């Protein structure tokens, strides 16, 4: 039956879209902390993702620190642990470099210092990519797990149509959701979260309220770096990568954050999920080269038709 095969293809594409979309959503949430809240255009975000992937790789495969957990658990434990490691990297990057061209220093200047931030984060991206090449080598790496080649099969009950759920991706997707929920709790329910949101909303006013805006921004930057790194670690479980992998993902991340509406954490997650969806669905009808083009065409359409983003509340202030 023709339509049963079609149905099966569509359902499988949807399932793949959801699982990959969750991982995209996680990296977008990381970026939205930096881009959406601090309004810093961070070109190096993709490279922080790359650091996360390598952190997982070294913890799990190269050094085997986590090998005792077994090949089913270690890759995901490695991805989660990549978070704190890259959190530290983000902290230092902000402390030494990014803080000098962002935050309160530049609020009053024309263009709010965006031009300086562009160059500086571009420089960081260059250093991370090429430094990665020196340290990690150009050989494509992967964090292998037997789970990535096995699947749960779900019978749909409609003819023979079966949905194959890749185990590695499903677990990655669940881990991504878990991290987002934890972060959401942190931002909405704790004092630290309140300070972060205040510093994001109006840095000058937050200062008057006794909030250390510099520190808040540093935490936001480090958190954003760490979250994206976890996503990188999860990507590593199903994709092989090189030190230049960031270039492929940085655009996806920005597309996701803008789609979701800047400044909205959950919006960024939905935005990333949408990108994953579009990518997988377009695989059904488009040749592989055009899948990425489809992402950007959808992105352009949404941005032009709905500038405040799919899930945002209001457009950027003029």
């Amino acid at each position, binding site marked *: 039956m023709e339509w049963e095969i079609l149905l099966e293809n569509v359902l499988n594409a949807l399932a793949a879209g959801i699982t990959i979309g969750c991982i995209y959503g996680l990296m977008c949430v990381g970026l939205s902390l930096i881009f959406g809240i601090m309004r810093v255009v961070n070109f190096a975000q993709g490279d922080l993702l790359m650091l996360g992937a390598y952190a997982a790789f070294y913890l799990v495969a190269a050094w085997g620190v986590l090998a005792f957990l077994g090949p089913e658990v270690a890759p995901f434990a490695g991805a989660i642990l990549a978070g704190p490691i890259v959190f530290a990297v983000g902290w230092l990057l902000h402390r030494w470099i990014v803080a000098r061209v962002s935050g309160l220093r530049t609020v009053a200047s*024309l263009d709010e210092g965006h031009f300086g931030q562009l160059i500086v984060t571009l*420089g*960081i991206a260059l*250093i991370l990519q090429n*430094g990665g090449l*020196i340290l990690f080598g150009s050989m494509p790496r992967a964090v292998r797990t037997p789970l990535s080649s096995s699947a749960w099969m779900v019978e749909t009950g409609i003819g023979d149509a079966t949905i194959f759920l890749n185990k590695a991706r499903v677990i990655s997707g669940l881990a991504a959701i878990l991290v987002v929920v934890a972060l959401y709790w942190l931002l909405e329910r704790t004092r630290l979260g309140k300070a972060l949101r205040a510093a994001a909303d109006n840095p000058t006013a937050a200062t008057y309220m006794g909030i250390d805006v510099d520190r808040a921004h540093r935490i936001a930057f480090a958190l954003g770096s760490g979250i994206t790194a976890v996503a990188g670690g999860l990507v590593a479980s199903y994709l092989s990568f090189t030190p230049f992998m960031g270039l492929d993902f940085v655009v996806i991340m920005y597309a996701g954050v803008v789609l979701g509406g800047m400044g909205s954490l959950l919006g960024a997650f939905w935005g990333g999920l949408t990108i994953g969806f579009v990518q997988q669905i377009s695989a059904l009808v488009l040749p592989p080269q055009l899948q*990425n083009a489809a992402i950007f065409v959808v992105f352009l359409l949404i941005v032009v038709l709905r500038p405040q983003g799919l899930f945002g509340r209001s457009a950027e202030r003029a």
Partner: protein
Amino acid sequence: MRPGALPRIRRDALIFAALVALYLAVSGVVTNSYYQLMLTLVPIWAVMGISWNLFSGYVGLTSFGHAVFFGLGAYTVALTLNWWDLSPWFGIAIGAVVGAAAAVFIGMPTFRLRGHYFALAMLAFPLVLLYVFQYLGYQEVSLPMKRQDPFFWLQFTDPRAFTAVAVGMLVVAMAISFAVENSRFGLTLMAIRQNELAAEASGIDARRWKMRALVLSGVIAATAGGLYACILLVVTPEAVFGILTSAQALTVVLFGGVGTVWGPLIGAAILIPLAETLHAELGNIVPGIQGVVYGVAIILVMLLAPEGIFWTLRDRWLRDRGPAAPVPRGDRPASAAVAPLVTAPPQVSGPLLRVEGLSKSFGGLRAVDDVSFEVKPGEILGIIGPNGAGKTTLFNVLNGVLPADSGRAWLAGEPITGRKLHAICRLGVGRTFQVVRSFPRLALLDNVLIGAYGAGLTGDAAVAAAEEALARVGLLDQAAQPAGQLTNKGLRLMELARALAGRPRLLLLDETLAGLGREECDELLEVLGRLRAEGMTIVIIEHTMHAMLRLADRFVVLDHGKVLAEGAPRTVVEDRSVIEAYLGKKWLARCST
């Protein structure tokens, strides 16, 4: 042309000509083909930077996607040569047209976006094309070899010839850049960058000017891409549409200095040789080290010179020279400015401004609620009311910043509701804003000129109008000073002059006296009094009651968006409901006892 532009252009052209001569002399000596290629790439990326700067630098909308024009130019040359055996010269010309068309196509939907949204939407365009060209099978298009007539086919055996052609292109791009910066075009773009709202309120159709800038920018970038294809002989989607190409365009400008013709030149002259040399010298030893060094270098320079090398050096040099003395302006007799009369007295019978039932809501909040009043020619109407009464919103609706929900307004019988901001300005409504925005590095006169240009004046007439306006507020002797040196009072006066330069029939002044000391306040009141004496009609929002009592002929009191009272100042301030709105019920009780 902007005042004082001629000597400036002459000086800059001389410096540039000397640099070009020096550059060509050096490239004539270099025999190493690798370094010769580097010398060819410097002007190409400088042109690319100029293209980016003409748009993003002056308009202030960051473009992450200039590779779209570059790539289209490169592919046009490569494909026309392959398909139709067309000379690259024609290919570059066609590429320029393609670049212009792409700019229109991209600009139309994208100019609705602001800030980061615009920047990121621009990022998507070249990436879409990158994948489309890959899909179409143009992963690697090489330019076929032509043996005869190297000039016609742009295939020289001597690499120095390419350098000469590239420098030729740079000269043209620099000439365009000089022309833009020193003309109404450049000044208008800078006005938009500074404050789009204020620019539109000065009568500038921002969208149209942005489109012109993007088209010009697209043409230049496509040309650079076309020549790039001729030099490298192979075009790949990654090389011309890639994210790094867009990044390169903005890197050279931001590094050198944004919004100046010299920025792209400085950036390209330092960064391209640095990157290439590092690549050649270190890249073989430790792959990747060149990128690290390059990254560290641009970070260090940006930390030391956040606005780019040009501005940092220039500011330092100006500071060392001490503050510039007010330069007497020689190129124009000062007497031109003493002409006594402002505007043609409004030839209207009946009210100059009539407002009927105007309303504006934000969600559930009725910010302006069924407001009606009239302004007679030559009168000063004060609009007062507590914070949040809807005063500024009323102005925003009147001059077209916000559309009215209902109600209408007429200027001298002409309906103004429903019109666009710049159109209302052209009808004769001038406006100042609560927060003054200026171009700190531009001369006072240039700042005011924007108002004159916005009103549709050009050339000497615009300069005359600007000088007259400066004279009217008493700033003419400081006309050549950069606006950054002005005090708060000076800035307020400058903004007043900018509104006056458009020769408005009606002035809307939004808290012009805010933040001024008593004496400064008096000075401003004097200026406003003079304007009234000359027949200007003014509607002014103000909090300082004592000033308003001296200035205004009549008050309109707003509270919660409604007109609470209207009439002569003395009667209004004694009105019980007004006192209550301002000071609360307790005070009212006190007053009446």
